[in-house]
């Protein structure tokens, strides 16, 4: 099986990064690969909040009593991660980890976990989350999941993977296109658009048992599903009446309520986290721009004004920011807009970015882009300073969405 590789590219100043000594854990021979601190280190680097200190050639403590703080203070470490792994049966391990304050010489966090070999990566993500939460004071997202569509030859695969792109599992496979996956708020279901019936139809599929239902298969095209924050309804784009218009429907396909009307395109709905607003893309002003309206329809206000192509809105978990794609000079890039001040910032430096989606803690944005002619997934921190690429050999990835 091909393994996804994570390329981390740090741009801009590193002034605010916390210098962290991540010391390889003492582990028994035959432990699962890779070493835990490798996974933890990739997670923490991806967050853009840490600068990992070179630990090679220095002492390798595994226990607080072994730490020579002068060594690590000289290297500029503000925090130290140490740990040990013990084998407790053929495929069962005990992992002990501690996060130490290198300046105060005190323990900030400690954790002991018994895990199976198949939970190795999840354990590493749990440790990364603990370090992140203790030092940054924000919920970690390393144990969350993402979904995306991969094109393999003529086949389309809807996949669910760990947030770092590892452990991809195919949940739908089709010879016809799949687009626009969306996790339900609790993460147990995925809505998506499948073309298997020779037209776009919106399905909702259970991640538990794989059962699914066509929730929008009206005459014409059915697309762009977006879950209401309470998980009870979907905003969708339907063409059953006239043009591409926004509707909300119940999960059983009933209770269809139309939100927009007119001859223009209205699509790509995105709910505000409080459920009050729906952001969407419309060409009502001549070029595609992002607009906002109350979630039950009504007064529409334009949100984007720069340029003539702003599409694919995604709301941040706190509802204060909007990420979207802007075309400027033929390049499609990820933009972050503060909704209170309308100030915008270009987050990426590529040319074919699509489908931005926020991490559950609002600190990272996952998006699709092209690299070497293939579709790859990228992450960028909301300050735009740290970007990573998830690349898997032979894959052509697109349409990412970040789940809980």
């Amino acid at each position, binding site marked *: 099986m091909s393994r996804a590789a994570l390329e981390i590219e740090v741009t801009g100043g590193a002034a605010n990064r916390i210098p962290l000594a991540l010391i390889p854990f003492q582990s028994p021979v035959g432990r699962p690969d890779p070493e835990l601190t490798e996974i933890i280190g990739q997670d923490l680097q991806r967050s853009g909040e840490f600068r990992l200190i070179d630990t090679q050639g220095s002492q390798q403590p595994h226990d607080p009593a072994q730490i020579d703080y002068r060594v690590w203070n000289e290297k500029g470490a503000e925090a130290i991660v140490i740990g040990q792994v013990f084998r407790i049966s053929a495929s069962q391990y005990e992992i002990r980890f501690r996060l130490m304050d290198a300046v105060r010489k005190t323990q900030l966090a400690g954790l002991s976990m018994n895990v199976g070999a198949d939970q190795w990566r999840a354990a590493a993500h749990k440790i990364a989350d603990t370090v992140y939460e203790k030092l940054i004071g924000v919920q970690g997202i390393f144990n969350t999941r993402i979904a995306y569509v991969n094109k393999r030859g003529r086949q389309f695969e809807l996949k*669910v993977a760990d947030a770092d792109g590892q452990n991809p*599992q*195919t949940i739908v496979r089709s*010879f016809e296109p799949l687009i626009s996956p969306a996790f339900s708020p609790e993460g147990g279901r995925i809505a998506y658009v499948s*073309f298997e019936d*020779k037209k776009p139809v919106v399905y909702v599929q259970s991640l538990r048992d794989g059962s699914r239902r066509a929730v929008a298969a009206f005459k014409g095209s059915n697309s*762009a599903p977006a879950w209401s924050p309470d998980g009870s309804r979907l905003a969708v784009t339907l063409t059953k009446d006239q043009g591409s218009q926004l509707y909300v429907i119940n999960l059983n396909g009933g209770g269809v309520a139309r939100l927009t009307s007119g001859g223009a*395109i209205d699509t790509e709905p995105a709910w505000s986290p409080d459920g009050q607003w729906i952001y969407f893309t419309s060409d009502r002003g001549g070029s595609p721009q992002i607009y906002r309206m109350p979630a039950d329809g009504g007064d529409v206000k334009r949100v984007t004004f720069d340029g003539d192509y702003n*599409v694919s809105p995604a709301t941040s978990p706190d509802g204060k920011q909007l990420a979207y794609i802007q075309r400027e000079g033929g390049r499609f890039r990820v933009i972050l807009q503060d909704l209170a001040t309308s100030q915008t910032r270009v987050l990426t430096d590529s040319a074919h970015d699509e489908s931005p989606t926020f991490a559950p803690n609002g600190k990272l944005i996952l998006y699709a882009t092209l690299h070497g002619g293939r579709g790859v997934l990228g992450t960028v921190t909301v300050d735009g300073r740290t970007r990573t690429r998830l690349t898997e050999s032979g894959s052509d990835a697109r349409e990412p969405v970040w789940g809980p």
Partner: protein
Amino acid sequence: MNRFLLSLLVMAGLAGCETLGLNDKTASIEDRTAPPPVASTASAQSGATVTPQGAATGRPGVETAGLGGTSVDRQIVEAKSLDGKTSAGPDPRKDPASPLSKRSIYFDFDSFTVKDEYRSIIEAHASYMMQNPQSRVILQGNADSRGSREYNLALGQKRSDVVRRVMTLLGVQDERLEAISFGEEKPRALGDTEADYAENRRTDIVYSDE
């Protein structure tokens, strides 16, 4: 815990697909999506084939010839079926000489109006549908690959909707037409030259019995 659920989910997910016959179904239908090579060639060089009907339809600006052509065509079909060569007779929609074999309506960049040169093709199909009351058509809109997939789906829909509107204005009942979009998902031209983009900005006329 997570892992366990995931492995369950994958097994169940794949099983679900098989139950639904997703792969089989799509494989068998796949061929129908791509218009027959004859149709696409003909549409790419509209006006090149010279027949009484074809010449009239293919040339820009001759708008009514297609309608006349179709009715003549139908008489020929009936005559041929009397020959006893085939039991049902050749399908005029498959006759390269007929405007009915032309299935693609092309659009300019960022445009959603039917150009004059394609009007006669739509008229021929509208006429055929009115003479064949059981016929139903799916209009498949497409867009080039630049930008948002969902927005491109809506652009493709604009291109199928306008053909649907023209056909209903010509007298075809709306219930017999379905305008859908493939957006940028099923490109006929895979490159990223201007010519490729132009090839993908189109609506295909597909009969449900084909």
